[in-house]
């Protein structure tokens, strides 16, 4: 579904991604794990068109999207749930959700939007209850749900999520991850960037380890979980200390 080859990207003179090659197959949950500053967010911003790749190819459903503006990429079916939610706090929950439907309005399918909202409320019953509340008054977990809901309104086939568990309590985090799994089960494809590598690998099919802008490991989630480098660097296990015990 998504195929990236030798993508280089960055900010100003700062080169963040150094020849990243990866792919996401249809129906997969693929996660990118890596330390702070490894380039995870830069990668998602580059794929979604918020940042222009300096070189390399980005193919979405076999079509080059590297030079398209972000809204066109959403239009094609590739949506981003950005880091830190990026909601419009003074607007209501419903208004925030409707903003995500801009491709439908542009396609003059305003009618269909109502059905879409109903479908979304089916996944997030809590958002229906809070429909008329201002987004800024929601809890962290609810805001994350709203951010996902807004992205889903564009009817994406590929949903990219940037740190959806950030700042959430463990229980709430679990809810968010079960939503990600549900999205995949309902036919979506998910590219998930997470600091919480263990949780991400727990639901993912495959993963990539990004380290200072380079992919240093690719593998099934199962293999990455049992890779000692991954355990030491990203799963918070101090193997040497364990060895001494």
């Amino acid at each position, binding site marked *: 579904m998504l195929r990236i080859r030798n993508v280089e990207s960055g900010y100003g003179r700062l080169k963040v991604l150094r*020849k990243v090659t990866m792919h996401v197959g249809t129906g997969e949950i693929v996660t990118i794990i890596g330390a702070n500053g490894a380039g995870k967010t830069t990668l998602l911003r580059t794929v979604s068109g918020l940042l222009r790749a300096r070189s390399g190819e980005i193919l979405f459903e076999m079509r080059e999207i590297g030079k398209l503006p972000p809204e066109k990429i959403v239009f094609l079916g590739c949506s981003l749930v950005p880091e830190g939610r990026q909601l419009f706090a003074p607007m209501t929950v419903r208004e925030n959700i409707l903003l995500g439907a801009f491709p439908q309005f542009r396609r003059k399918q305003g009618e269909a939007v109502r059905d879409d909202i109903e479908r979304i409320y089916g996944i997030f019953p809590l958002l229906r209850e809070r429909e008329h509340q201002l987004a800024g008054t929601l809890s962290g977990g609810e805001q994350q749900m709203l951010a996902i809901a807004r992205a889903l309104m564009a009817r994406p086939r590929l949903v990219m999520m940037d740190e959806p568990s950030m700042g959430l309590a463990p229980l709430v985090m679990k809810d968010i991850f079960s939503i990600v799994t549900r999205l995949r089960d309902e036919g979506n494809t998910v590219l998930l960037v997470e600091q919480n590598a263990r949780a991400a690998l727990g639901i993912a099919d495959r993963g990539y380890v990004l380290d200072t802008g*380079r992919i240093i490991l690719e593998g099934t989630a199962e293999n990455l979980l049992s*890779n000692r480098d991954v355990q030491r660097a990203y799963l918070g296990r101090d193997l040497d200390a364990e060895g001494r015990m």
Partner: protein
Amino acid sequence: MYWEPVQERMDREELAQLQLERLESTLNRVYRNVPFYRRKFDELGISTEDFGSLDDLPRLPFTTKEDLRQNYPYGLFAVPMREVVRIHASSGTTGTSTVVGYTLNDIKTWSNLVARVLTAGGVTKDDVVQISFGYGLFTGGFGLHYGAERIGASVIPASSGNTARQIKIMMDFKTTALVGTPSYAMLVAETIQEMGIPVSALSLKYGLFGAEPWSEGMRQEIQDKLGIVATDNYGLSEILGPGVSGECQERRGLHINEDHFLVEVIHPETLTPVAAGQAGELVITTLTKEAFPMIRYRTRDLTSFLPGDCPCGRTGRLMSRVAGRTDDMLIIKGVNVFPSQIESVLFEIEGTEPHYQIVIDRKRAMDEVTVLVEAAESIFFDQMRRQSGMVETIRKRLAHELGISVDVKLVEKKTLQRFEGKAKRVIDNRKL
């Protein structure tokens, strides 16, 4: 039947993407973790950053057996020893052995790849698999063992040797699949005949053989004598052990597990890729190995890529059965000769047994080759005339095949040495 249908039937374009991803991450890892590669890349001015396509592969340096020896024992490991859960060493058929290591993930990958090869050869969880490869530093025994267990087959770790006992186990335990070297399979077949045991007393259905070159004629012979479907599989400890490639039941070449290995065939002297379909030296880059990644390892094994798709549905490219090793290659009177060429001629000739030895001497600066062949009893005791007629036939056929004349001697059945491991068929008495 496939073990990993998605991977084994992967679309070629998807495969190329996956190979590039894995190659780039492997290069990043070896540059970071293996001083040998870091030095080599730096010397050649290769940065992993200007590598962007599988077509750039020829720009990377080769790794040779000599490099492995110089870094003996652990110098090329890409992980600390505490992450290594298994150590093997090459069988040392030629010179010093080399040491290789595996992480837990490597063992898992290995088991899966061998499971693919076994499944392609016909083995399922319902089979009783007798492994007559040696268990030890050699990768054959443990490699096939783990793969067969992974499938869920019942594994008999018979190991090598004690042929009479192996045959008893085969009958009593109702072994359905035999795993070992082809020369050992021949020995088993002969011993069974000698013991007067009919093939029908065995439950054998499949044979998976490897670790040494064998000819199509030898396959026919083994299949006929043991009543099995015999497939060839290939691997080498420096790369993984068994599991690099294996034949499916179509038996038209070995499917390479290309999602884990990037393969090239090069001319052993010019070191450039040979034309499609031409024979040359197999060069392998590992794509998923953690403990012991190899960049463009020169296997010294001679093979060629076979054209066309296999009806079995696997998309991994086919390589021809390994014809020999570049270092098995005998230079006789300036001509390159492979023992396997001699073997395939012998198999075509009626009245010979599939046991032979090649003796090379040098007399007054001239190479002289004598091929000793065991004659079937009936012929040997029959008449002198038929005998000398046969010797003449063999001589002519060999001269035609090899382009040099060789001497041929028929010897009595059972007079040449038998091998339970890898066969040593060449005796080179030249002092070069």
